[in-house]
């Protein structure tokens, strides 16, 4: 990734880490997914949100 894009991603992930609105698990998974050369599908991101947000459903 080029400099500015990398800077944006780095700042974005830092922002997620301190955001109360974004669960830690989501921030971690996004960090890993967005660092890859090929971006993931939107469905995969949505699944990350589902998995990491709210209380687990019994």
């Amino acid at each position: 990734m080029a400099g500015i894009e990398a800077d944006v991603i780095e700042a974005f992930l830092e922002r997620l880490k301190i955001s109360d609105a974004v669960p830690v698990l989501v921030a971690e998974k996004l960090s890993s997914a967005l660092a890859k050369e090929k971006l993931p599908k939107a469905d995969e991101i949505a699944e990350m949100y589902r998995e990491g947000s709210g209380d687990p459903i019994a």
Partner: protein
Amino acid sequence: MIQLLAIRIDEFRGIRELDLSPDCRSVVILGPNGSGKSGVVDAIDFALTGNVSRLSGEGTGGVSLAKHGPHVHRRDDPAAAKVTLTIRHAVNGQTGTLSRCVKTPGQFTLEPETPELLEAVTWASLHPELTLSRREVVKYVNAEPGKRAQEVQALLKLERIDETRRLLKSALSKTSSELKGTGTAVKNAEDAVRRHLDLTELLSEEICGVINGYRATLGLDLLEAVIADTKLATGVQGAPGGRGYDKLSALRDVDALAAFIAEHPNLSAAAAELAAALDLLKADPTILDALKHRHLVEVGLPLVANAVCPLCDQTWQDVSELRAHLEGKLARSEAAATLEGRIRKSAEEVAEELQRLRGLIQTAQPHSVTVGRGGDHAALLEWSNDLAAFEANLGSLETLAQVGSRLETNPLGTPTTLTSTLSELRVDIEALPDQSTAEDARIALTIAEERWSQLRQARASKAKATAARTTADAVYQAYNEVADSALTKLYDSVESNFSDYYRQINADDEAAFTAGLAPSAGKLDLEVDFYGLGMFPPMAYHSEGHQDGMGVCLYLALIDQVLGEDFRVAVLDDVVTSVDTNHRRQFCNLLKEVFPGVQFIITTHDEVWARQMQSSGLIDRQSLVRFHGWSVEGGPLYGSAGDFWKQIESDLDRDDVPSAAHKLRRNLEASMADIAESLQARVVYRPDNSHDLGALFNAVKGRHGELLKKAASSANSWSNEVAEQQVESLKADRTQAIQAQGDENWAINALVHNNDWATMTRADFDPVVETCKQFVDLFTCSSAECESWIYVSGTPGNEEALRCSCGALNVNLRQK
């Protein structure tokens, strides 16, 4: 990150064999059009990136690197077409050779392959923007905003930022859709509980009252309150004979289903709206095409540069016709997008109503089993599945086209026997024998427990979906804030640097120049100040030369932004040609002062411009490569200007006085013209700029003497003894040089005025060379690192100082 020590080109483009040794210094390659200069540019581009930007992208007319990269005589032997760069790591000084051949352009050989060099070479391969042609400069300035945004984003490597933004937006949309679906499920589950308990509102107290009524009948503990986790049927024992039934509750379920089938105004309105919108789509199939191709047209329109369509290569009558065609398509697609929004909204409303209906079927259907109507149960199940399939078809424009007729006729797809089925079911339920009050209470509590549990799960799913949606929104907002902030900062910085650079070049007439870069929705508007009269597009009023200057300044501002400290080499192919004559020195100063660590490799066909680069100190005296001509068989005819005194000496070593004399004269002509310009010497005006060497000699000699007098007078007026001594030293050098000229006057006259050297011997010519060298040295900075011509700052009659580019010489000319 790397700089070029040497360039070796074999059988590449128009070049058979060529060696250059820039030695990590800036170089100017000078030659007439068609002399092969751009072949060197292509070769560097190829060696660094494995590609030749001029042979890729739009407008290449079928020319490709693979087919046309090798020299025409070696077109069937791409392995022979090879470029080797000797490189130096600009930070750690490591050197190596980087080679590529056209046969395997994606692979390079690097020796030695140290990790640092490998990283630097890999980095360079990702930066084709290190090579810039005039065509590319213009695109930054004169492109339409959409195209400019693409070009600038590509240069700044920002595509991924937008790609990531779109990805997160899409994920957000998905979570929104899921949340909507769970909301409908909760509504259905609430309806089921409400119907079962025969309540109009699901208030905790009311639920508690009904449930406790049943519990009291069974002698069970009463509930103090009902919350989400409450087990409504705690303590209820299962009946040995089976589940039993709640007759009234079952009748309410069947009635609710029947009522929906009889009257469903929301569904009818939404289905009618959807059918009407789909009719419009059906009436004009090009709308769907317009939607499909919308993005393609959006991308293609800014790429239109001539009458050839950038999307399909079809040639049009003229460019305006092509542009109008694509604009028409875009306008149609905008209308189509509005229609698409209308379709999606009404389709979502229809889907929501269908989900509600399926919820009603789901609660009614078990009752058919209770009364022994297994066939009806299967029919209801089949209908529910049919509705689910219908609902799925509402999700995309393509599948919606298949359900258009159903929307108009019978969106419910009601089975023909449904009304009678429900009537008979109702009768059968009513006919069920009454149970004991205790049994009724037991079953009512069991069903209440089931439906309360389903509601709890539906609410949990909705809460989960809400949390996911909140997360998605927070992530998207955070990304937007970070990306927008970074881009705003970036563009502010680019705008500021661009304005600074341009002002630096045009300080004399546009000292208050400002530029405005405004990013918006995939576009990047550029407006520039025009002499304080307002902000306009660059093409509006500025001359072509000024526009070219802006292009280079914007490129430098952008590349400085993206590469920062890694910006160590740039190849400028004919980029500087149109910079106004009056601003060339300032342009050179800009490159030299703002980018002192950058090796510029510059091509131009303008002899005067090339010399100005040298005289300004941007290019040192050894770094001019002159291309004299080109032939198919031999490629470029070139020679490095280098130290021409050494070349002359070499000729003399071979007793080739005519050749040495020819070189001396040619170089004196060029040098004297430069020096005359640098010192603001006066010569008789000639419209063709063809000044006689003798006239230049005299003008330079006279002006130099005049300036030293001014310098002496200045030093005296300031009582500056150091300056006085410095001027005296310069005067002494001058006296010695002129004295030497006097001694060799006969030979110099022969050279300067008569071109008469044929009869001279080496013994005759050696002193002439030495004398001329001594004379030229009077106007040359003595620093080996600089060697620029000395020049006068200020204007004639108002001279300020006599200087050189590196500052080693700085003699005041102003009086106290």
